[in-house]
């Protein structure tokens, strides 16, 4: 009798494990499906993409990728030129703002923090006309500086908001100790605060890179020539017009998502580390 119970409990445990993994695999498949279809369709020929279903592979051809790569070279370069400074400045300068709001607590700073939080959630669309006019008046419409400036308006508050979440795990006593040691704010920020919130700043940096890389609306409005298009805008030109070459539009999508994918794969563990630091209240 006891033997029978033991056996049945093992079977129940096994069934539970199998069921658990089945659910996990199912969820993973749903997540992987877009990447999968993007990869296999970008490897199809023009004929193949029209004759086979979306999820079914049909041979390997690098033709579409080659064609698109030549055309996407410039937009990808543009995206790099714009996105990297935006992410670096938003993280570092946003961190400075977060540090100041954290160190000096006053009514004014509480208001400032609220303003920053609101700025993070302003929809781009409503700023469209004033922003375009401002850039035109400043003479930086359709330039790298103009795009960087416009992105910073939206992502600097995001950086400040995210960094202030990560900064809160830093003990106030540490900053006070540095002040008593005779250090000014700039020295404290560089030598004490920054090294201690690196996991958090990597998370912030990654978030802003991915967000601004994928941002479609701002570069669409603020650029007017093909030479200035960023990746997200360039991808648009592979669908619509006189007819869509699906293999090329999938190839363009694949190219435009390579940088975010690489970043997630390479820095993903730091992204998680940054958020873990929040929970443990330590340096991560």
């Amino acid at each position, binding site marked *: 009798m006891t033997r029978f119970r033991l056996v049945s409990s093992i079977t129940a445990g096994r069934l539970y494990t199998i069921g658990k993994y089945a659910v996990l695999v199912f969820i993973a498949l749903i997540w992987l499906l877009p990447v999968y279809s993007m990869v296999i369709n970008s490897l199809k020929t023009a004929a193949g993409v029209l004759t086979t279903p979306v999820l079914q592979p049909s041979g390997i051809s690098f033709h579409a990728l080659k064609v698109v790569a030549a055309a996407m070279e410039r937009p990808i370069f543009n995206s790099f030129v714009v996105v990297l400074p935006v992410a670096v400045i938003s993280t570092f300068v946003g961190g400075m703002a977060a540090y100041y709001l954290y160190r000096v607590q006053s009514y004014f700073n509480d208001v400032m923090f609220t303003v920053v939080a609101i700025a993070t959630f302003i929809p781009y669309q409503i700023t469209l006309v004033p922003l375009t006019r401002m850039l035109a008046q400043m003479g930086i419409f359709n330039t790298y500086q103009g795009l960087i400036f416009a992105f910073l308006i939206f992502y600097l508050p995001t950086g400040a908001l995210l960094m202030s979440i990560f900064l809160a795990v830093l*003990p106030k*006593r*540490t900053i*006070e*100790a*540095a*002040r*008593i*040691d*005779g*250090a*000014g704010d700039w*020295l404290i920020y560089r*030598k*004490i605060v920054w*090294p*201690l919130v690196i996991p958090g700043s990597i998370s912030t940096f990654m978030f802003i890179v991915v967000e601004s890389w994928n941002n479609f609306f701002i570069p669409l409005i603020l650029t007017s020539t093909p030479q200035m298009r960023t990746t997200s805008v360039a991808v648009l030109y592979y669908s619509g017009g006189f007819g869509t070459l699906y293999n090329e539009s999938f190839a363009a999508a694949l190219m435009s998502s390579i940088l975010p994918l690489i970043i997630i794969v390479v820095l993903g563990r730091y992204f998680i580390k940054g958020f873990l630091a929040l929970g443990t209240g330590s*340096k991560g």
Partner: protein
Amino acid sequence: MVKIEFRKVGKAFGKKNRKKDVISDMSFEVSHGDMYGIIGASGAGKTTVLRMIAGLEEPTSGSILFDNKVVAENGRILVPAEERNIGMVFQNWALYPHMSNFENIAFPLRAKRVPNDKIREKVEYLANLLDITETLRRRPGLISGGQQQRVAVCRALSKDPSLLLLDEPFSNLDATIKDSARSLVRTVQSELGITAIIVSHDPADIFALASNTLCITGGKSGQAGKTSDLYHAPNSIDVARSIGEINLLRATVEVRNGRDAAVLGEENILPVTLSQAARSSLDSGDRSLIVGIRPEDIRIVEDSQEQVDARRWLAAGNATVKISSYSAGIFRILLRLHGVETDLATTSEHFLPPGQEVSMFFRKDDVKLFDNSGYNLAATPAAAAVPHQA
């Protein structure tokens, strides 16, 4: 070396309609080169006072002076923390976890842009003085608590501060290394001759280090003066309790055999001498008072035949031993005084079995009398102008 002065300093936290006074009307002075103690129960406001000296908080009212120069007054900081040339040892040491111990100690010097060779020289000198040379290349997280404390002291001293602040620096240390840490701080302070202020709730720290002490009770200056004066002649029960252990007994003043006497319960009569002021204040009140006696001022006599010098000792009645415990070569005895049914703590050189009947004597000159509000009746009214915190 610096002289510090508090002039009617008050500090409140919170917004306008929900203000909470933490410190009020506090005045005291710390002279050049002094090792000054600040003691008080937790929540009394000790750390707030220290943070105001450091420049981390501004006084809401009043002014703080360094060498007769105002550094902060009425809600404004005139000289910020980084310009006060202070070294501070925090309660949890607040070392920089990502830097080596060498860089921790060097940080104040780097902030001053001292050349590298000078920094190396200074850090090595201090590390040698405090015996942590071998830990310099490691990080604070990888060394013991006692070593971390010494790194914190080195960091506080590396820039040759004119003032050293210590905020409960020993509370995180094991009992076994507390004494060596205390003696280390004392040696360093006297060797370098700087003004130092130590905040602690532990009388052991204050007695070991501070020659002068301020006792804070309920956010006010309870008493300031020589540490031994605070112990032997406390202004109030709060001060007496903060700086050491004291037994308190309720009594009424009556005239027995033509003399004033404090009557404890039914049978224990303690002849006392009251000042004119004290007597008149008792006459107007309900004639009850509180007798305070420190554990070391109680003498236990087991043999009723033993002669006790009546000029120095007052018979306080008979008591039963409740329990004897042991600490550092001495037995701590809890006695129950007959007729009052109050427990009194004292010490004895040898073990006394629970249940044993003994006679109890109080050292005549060290019996303290407090009125019902907790002021010492022997103190002058001006010095005792501190309300008792219930």
